[in-house]
């Protein structure tokens, strides 16, 4: 039995819009009058939203699986950056779904499906990672302040989180041969 497994893990950037309308109530600029000197005033306004972005994602290509290879596991360090001062963030993962759950983590060959598991860690590596439930937001993820500063000043998104994909041997063993693929959508939002 040979299965080609590919999970598309697209960059999903989520910008949270917090009902901040742009300025419509700026005081009108004042114009200068004639004189030995003349002065005018300009009003400037900008609305800054709470915002968050996830980046540094890559595809997971598990290659060819054969009976006896066991469970397939791979992980990827990613970057979550946000405007500061609004605390933790939440992560929500959604797969291609199945007949029961539209967010189920599934790969498909067009006919049959394989279920897989997704884990999220709010730091790089897999130590302390937690399994995600399809479609549910796991709140309380922490992003370090230093990371925010690095991203802001240098435009560098230093990895500070990890996503792990696990395709259980039981799923693989019971599946019909073929090339399976699917898309995993990761959504991050400020808590």
């Amino acid at each position, binding site marked *: 039995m040979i299965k080609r497994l590919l999970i598309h893990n697209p960059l999903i*950037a989520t*910008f949270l*819009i*917090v009902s*901040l*309308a*742009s*300025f*419509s109530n*700026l*005081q*009108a*600029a*004042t*114009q*200068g*009058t*004639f*004189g*030995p*000197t*003349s*002065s*005018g*005033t*300009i*009003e*400037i*306004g*900008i*609305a*800054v*939203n*709470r*915002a*968050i*972005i996830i980046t540094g994602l890559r595809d997971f290509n598990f290659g060819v699986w054969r009976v006896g290879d066991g469970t397939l596991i791979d992980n990827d360090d990613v970057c979550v*950056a*946000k*405007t*500061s*001062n*609004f605390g933790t963030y939440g992560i929500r993962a959604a797969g291609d779904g199945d007949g029961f759950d539209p967010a189920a983590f599934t790969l498909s060959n067009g006919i049959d499906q394989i279920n897989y598991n997704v884990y999220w860690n709010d730091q790089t590596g897999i130590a302390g990672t937690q399994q995600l439930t399809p479609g549910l937001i796991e709140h309380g993820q922490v992003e370090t302040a230093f990371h*925010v*500063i690095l*991203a*802001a*000043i240098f435009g560098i998104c230093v990895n500070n989180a990890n996503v792990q994909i696990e395709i259980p041997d039981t799923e693989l063993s019971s599946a019909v041969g073929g090339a399976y693929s699917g898309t995993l959508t990761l959504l991050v939002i400020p808590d």
Partner: protein
Amino acid sequence: MIKHLKCLLIALLLFCISVSASAVIRIYGLQDFNLGRWVLGAGSIRANANLCVAVRPRGPYQITAYGQGSGNSFVLSDAGVNLPFRVFYNDRRRPNGAQELNPGQALGGLRARRGSGIRRPCGRPNANITVLVAESNLSQLPAGRYRGSLVLVVGPE
């Protein structure tokens, strides 16, 4: 003869003083900057607007900008949090070639090119002002509505 020369010099001096005192200048055609809404990843925000400066009689002028922050620094603020911005000025009606203004420091040697009449609306701008809010500052802010004012003072040189 010397006495007459002295009188002439004094007369010329008085004339010069009189001319200097009668010079008038006006800055007008100013517009507010509504920089809209910023989200992470949107980069720095830059906006510019044309304006009019008229000097009579014609001659060079200088401009000084004052922000509302400490030491007249250029800042927008919300709930006590300051957002710095930069200001650039050009004595032509385009942002290219603008020089940066420092708070409270005059930028001189400017030329008021032919523009609208001093007593008319700013139909033919002859200067440009640009404001720049850096992403590095924006991205470290709490959400909010940041606003501030910028006072521009012009004077003949």
